[in-house]
């Protein structure tokens, strides 16, 4: 069960990561996903180290195969995360695009 108040609690820290630059520490491409991500398969998930040393996990968007490399530079962006569930709440969160 997801609700706006739960999302608000979870999303308080996301703003600190938006627009922040970093590099890919490691990555994978998911072929078997949880239910809410089935329509996105296959998708790339990366672990990023920001310039301030903090790290975050998120999906990489708008990429080509050659871009999935350790050390590649990315920036944090806000995107819709997964399919809308029965609660009709659209969940936004952190993803990354290449610089």
């Amino acid at each position, binding site marked *: 069960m997801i609700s706006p108040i739960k999302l608000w609690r979870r999303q308080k820290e996301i703003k600190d990561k938006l627009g922040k630059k970093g590099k890919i*520490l*490691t*990555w*994978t*491409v998911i072929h078997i*996903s949880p239910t809410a*991500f089935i329509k*996105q398969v296959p998708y790339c998930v990366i672990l990023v180290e920001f310039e301030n040393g903090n790290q975050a*996990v998120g999906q990489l968007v708008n990429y080509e195969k050659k871009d999935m490399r350790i050390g590649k530079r990315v920036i944090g962006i806000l995107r819709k995360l997964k399919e809308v569930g029965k609660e009709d709440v659209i*969940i936004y969160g952190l993803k990354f695009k290449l610089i």
Partner: protein
Amino acid sequence: MNSIIGYYTTCFGELWDKSLFDLVKESIQGVFKSACIEKRQIDAVFFGNMLAGILENNLHSSSKIAEILKVNIPVFRVESACASGSIAFHLANQYLNSKSGKTVLVIGAEKMTDYPVQEITNALLGALSGEEQAAGLTFPGAYAMMAKAYMKKYGYGEKSLAYVSFKNHFHGSLNKQAHFQKKVTIRNILESPYIADPLKIFDCSPISDGACSLILTSDKSLIKKAKHSVSVLSCETATDTISLKKRKKIYELESTKIAADKAFKKAKLKRKDINVAEVHDCFSIAEILAMEDLGFWKKGKGGKLITYGLTMLGSNSKPIVNTSGGLKSAGHPVGATGVKQIGEIFLQLTNQAQNRQVKNLKYGLAHNIGGSGGTAVVTILGKKS
């Protein structure tokens, strides 16, 4: 010192004719017979299970086990993701050390194959961090990220990973209780489809049903009378962050290193003393990392050493690893796995491992991981002298 005096495991696999508590009941009846004891001799029960609450609205398993046993003794249900079984064993050992009882029953069980793979993936996700769940990461995905970082750092390819599954399927082919009892070739593994790049379906342990039970006791007269017994030299656990992003190194499991150091220190043994080990190979990369983090292999060498077959039955090296077939081939009913690993070492040390028996044994080790390394349990068992 506490001793294990009996072990029973159901077959692992797609057991459509059996419910979770059918499996639990079979393993309890089996272990009582194996240890030649009666229920009135049991002071408490420790039950490892992860998913029954999420998948089938099946909670308060303590009283369900009391109903099966028709007893009123304390029954504790333990959850620690894939380490639930070992944590149940750890707590049972502590319970005896604190002299709260003399003889306890340890059960691990899971029922997984009633559900589509996405539902199981969702349920298992409960053991990843919120941020990882929001990113659509999965358990194979988390280990795939460790594998990518490890392979890049030390210059290995997917073929190194394949040798883990090749060995464990060979071992599983000798285990009549294993989920998969078929050998596979390196080519079969490398040509199988990706689950999470670089991990392919043959790099991943399966979704399985199964239950295992052990009898653990401090009662000297029971140990003396037992047909088979092994001593618990140590059972130590350590934790780490649930998030990969907070780890010191992504290709190293700090929890394994800490638990192993504590366990070897307590058992007063060195790495070279261990003859057989069951290590947590939920994914092929996990066995390579485990061998390094447990201190058997130097960091970064595992990708090469695994290809030499040093840990395969028939090798003269020590330790021989995952004679049960590991999680990969024997199957991975998550709550049962930790108990099965300790049980396999019990079978080896008491010469009951049949056609997968390792000769001239003295000490064995079991290593069980919860989550992507958030919990580790290392248990060292010694042959009765």
